[in-house]
């Protein structure tokens, strides 16, 4: 690593932090229960917008995993989600109506809160439609993972985004508030992911899955990135660079082994493809607040009228994490 690059990245990180401090002023606390956070607690950070229908299952899922405190940002919801989140005993809620795109798709707000509350804690940063799966998650709470990572001197933990979809057109599913989305959207692509290394930030850039094969086959470069580093033992100077795909300092991005071994990794099950997908696509394509002016959403809208059938005969039906580990999508690595 040249000293110059290292210096430049240091400045990039500092600028991201300064930016976050500035954007943090847009946040207004709705309920602040952060004084309940105990020194060893595992925290969850999340930004959401009009997700009332998904929030109940989201909280359920992560409470069962052992998350101690939720730090949530409501970005201008117009439904009852905000009130629902506010009334949860383990949630601290902030609200902002500022544009999502100008806050680096919410990352600035999250960086601000993480710098303020997550220092010294294990912090999980996810979206409302992302569900964290790690080795032994059915028998060991997330605290066990955190303790094991601590004992192994590891600071960050990778989990690839795995798009889940139903069998048949997406619009034909019915997702009701509180439902487990993976009752219907329980299929995934088992082995069509491709990756390359980002030379500067050292992270892997992973693409593929149903979105690459159905929407982006003819423009693969635009296919959404699936690499994520959602679970981090947070220190104040840290910052996510682009969504939770990569971080600075860049040593945190080395969640993979280059000598042939397998590091321990997890999966974020992505419950994007439910009957809520079509409306969301039209709305986001118009709103253009997402990455690159919502380019991804425009592609969905153009293709198949936002009602795709992603299922094919080689799709796998989700069973549990062990299945994902056997398929080679995640790994137990050294954890036994």
């Amino acid at each position: 690593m040249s000293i110059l690059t290292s210096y430049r990245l240091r400045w990039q990180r500092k600028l991201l932090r300064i930016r976050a401090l500035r954007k943090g002023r847009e946040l207004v606390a709705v309920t602040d229960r952060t004084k309940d956070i105990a020194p060893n607690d595992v925290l969850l950070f999340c930004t959401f917008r009009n997700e009332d229908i998904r929030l109940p299952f989201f909280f359920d899922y992560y409470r069962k995993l052992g998350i101690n405190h939720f730090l949530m940002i409501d970005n201008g919801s117009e439904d009852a989600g905000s009130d629902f989140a506010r009334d949860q005993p383990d949630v601290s809620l902030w609200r902002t109506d500022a544009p999502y795109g100008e806050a680096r798709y919410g990352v600035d707000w999250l960086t601000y809160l993480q710098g303020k509350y997550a220092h010294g804690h294990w912090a999980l940063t996810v979206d409302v439609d992302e569900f964290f799966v790690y080795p032994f998650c059915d028998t060991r709470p997330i605290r066990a993972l955190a303790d094991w990572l601590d004992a192994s001197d590891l600071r960050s933990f990778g989990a690839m985004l795995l798009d889940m979809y139903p069998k048949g057109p997406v619009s034909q599913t019915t997702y009701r508030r509180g439902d487990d989305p993976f009752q219907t959207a329980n299929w995934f692509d088992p082995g069509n992911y491709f990756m390359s290394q980002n030379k500067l930030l050292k992270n892997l850039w992973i693409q593929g899955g149903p979105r690459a094969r159905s929407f982006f086959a003819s423009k693969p470069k635009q296919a959404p990135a699936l690499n994520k580093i959602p679970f981090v033992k947070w220190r104040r100077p840290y910052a996510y660079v682009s969504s939770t795909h990569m971080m600075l300092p860049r040593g945190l991005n080395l969640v993979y082994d280059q000598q042939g071994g397998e590091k321990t990794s997890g999966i974020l099950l992505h419950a994007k493809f439910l009957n809520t997908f079509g409306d969301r696509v039209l709305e986001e394509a118009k709103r253009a607040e997402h990455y690159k002016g919502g380019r991804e959403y425009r592609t969905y809208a153009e293709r198949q009228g936002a009602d795709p059938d992603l299922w094919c005969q080689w799709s796998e039906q989700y069973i549990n994490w062990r299945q994902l580990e056997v398929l080679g999508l995640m790994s137990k690595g050294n954890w036994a």
Partner: protein
Amino acid sequence: MSLGVIMLVHTAFDRAEQMVRHWAGAGCPVVIHVDSNVPAVAFDRFVGALADLPDVRFCARHRCEWGTWGLVAASQQAGTLLLEEFPEVQHVFLASGACLPLRPISELRSYLDARPDTDFIESATTADVHWTIGGLDRERFTLRFPFAWKKRRKLFDAFVKLQQAVGYKRRIPEGVVPHMGSQWWCLTRQTLDAILRDPNRETYDTYFRKVWIPDESYYQTLARLHSRKIESRSLTLAKFDFKGKPHIFFDDHVELLQRSKCFVARKIWRDASVLFNTFPASGDPLHQAQEPNSGTVDRVFAQAVHRRTLGRQGLFMQSRFPSIDRQTSIAAAPYAVLQGLDDIFPDFQSWLTQQTGAVVHGHLYAKDRAHFADESEVYRGCISDNARLRDYNGKMFLSNLIWNGRDRQHCFQFGPTDTQNIRWTLAKDTQASIWVVSGAWSIPLFCSGRSASEVRAEAARLQRIEDKFLKVLRSPDARARIKIMTLAQFVEAPMAVLQTIIDEIAGHRGLAIKEAPEMRDLAGLPDYLQELKNQGMHPFLTGDITAGTAPATKPVVLRKPYVISGK
């Protein structure tokens, strides 16, 4: 006869208290050493919590940093106190606050009573151990280590290198033969007493103070001087990962631990309440005398180390991305690449499938789309046939295809009309066997019915591309199994070549060729090639096909020779 316990504690005092009560409840005196880094408040609370137990003592405190002398000093201190205060103690067991007795302590006691002269301490000479971290085994005893390995790794490494470079060596005290092993031991009173009262103890202590990770070598070495009978194994089940960090046991290990029949296990996760509630298990009179057997546990953790260090061959994923120059293959299983054969035999793909039972793909790297074995749009693992998506990362397209179908042997057709970016990957892959019949691209041109003057440019282009591929295959970096022949060579003895290919792909399951594939009618080919030459394009890759050697349309089937293979 009695068993005494030395317990080293530095954190999780509630669990440590629980453990002390287990030992004390079974009638074992316990001497506790608490790390001097622990704040006075926590220490006092801990002492207070154990005040009701008469046979529990606390010894003077030392700073116990990982890999330092403090750990040895602590056990010396505690050991001296234990031997002084409890004269009836015959065996001394070194444990930590995270060591959980699995079997009833009475069973451990009767096990030790039956072996009154045996010291249980893992102790191996430096030449025979493989678990050392950082490659330092012998050098632990001959170099100096003034810098902490955990906090100042760079200085530590630099200083080791410097000493190696100048050839510095410490003198090992006379009579001492360095041994190493697990730091958790169980010694007889005699041996421990002899070690602690050794007239040379001052010398030994001064020496070991500067040895790296002395708690893994101090008792292990000195026990060799004093013990009457050493059993070189630890009674404590402790597994270590590839970096020398202890593995942690969780609730879902309960069955594994039960079956191990080990007396004590560590490290136990602080919140593993199932384990803490289950163990020590109540005694089972039938299995009281059973020997510990950690085979299954060993296998599980050996697998973890294997996975972490070697991983699954041919898998590229979010946490395994081997760099190109560190691997000999990108594929999880052997595969074959066939160039030119499908030009000669129009029905080659289905014929080969029938002969070998392998998965025979068409041109996977064709310009229009990937032609999978079943010509489907999406193949195993949900791989798309889209050419752009494939070419976006052609290498990973191949590794994915083989990984997803690694239970079968894969073959695919390749040729100069295909996307060529993959050629270096193929040539360097030790799992690939590549068969090329060069110049076979001339056959489709010949069969197209177009005149030589019309196809002249196209022929030249294909020849150029194929020639480039052959140069790659002939480069010294090529590691695949490669067989190149010209079209002329091939048509002289096609059956022999086909039989070799089949044997190679299918191994012993390969069938003798009963029915030869139908060859295209090549009767006019020599003239056609001559006409190309007349047009000024020289098809040198086909070899010399003259009118005289024009091949028969239907090759003769040879019987498979009966050969005892040397493979």
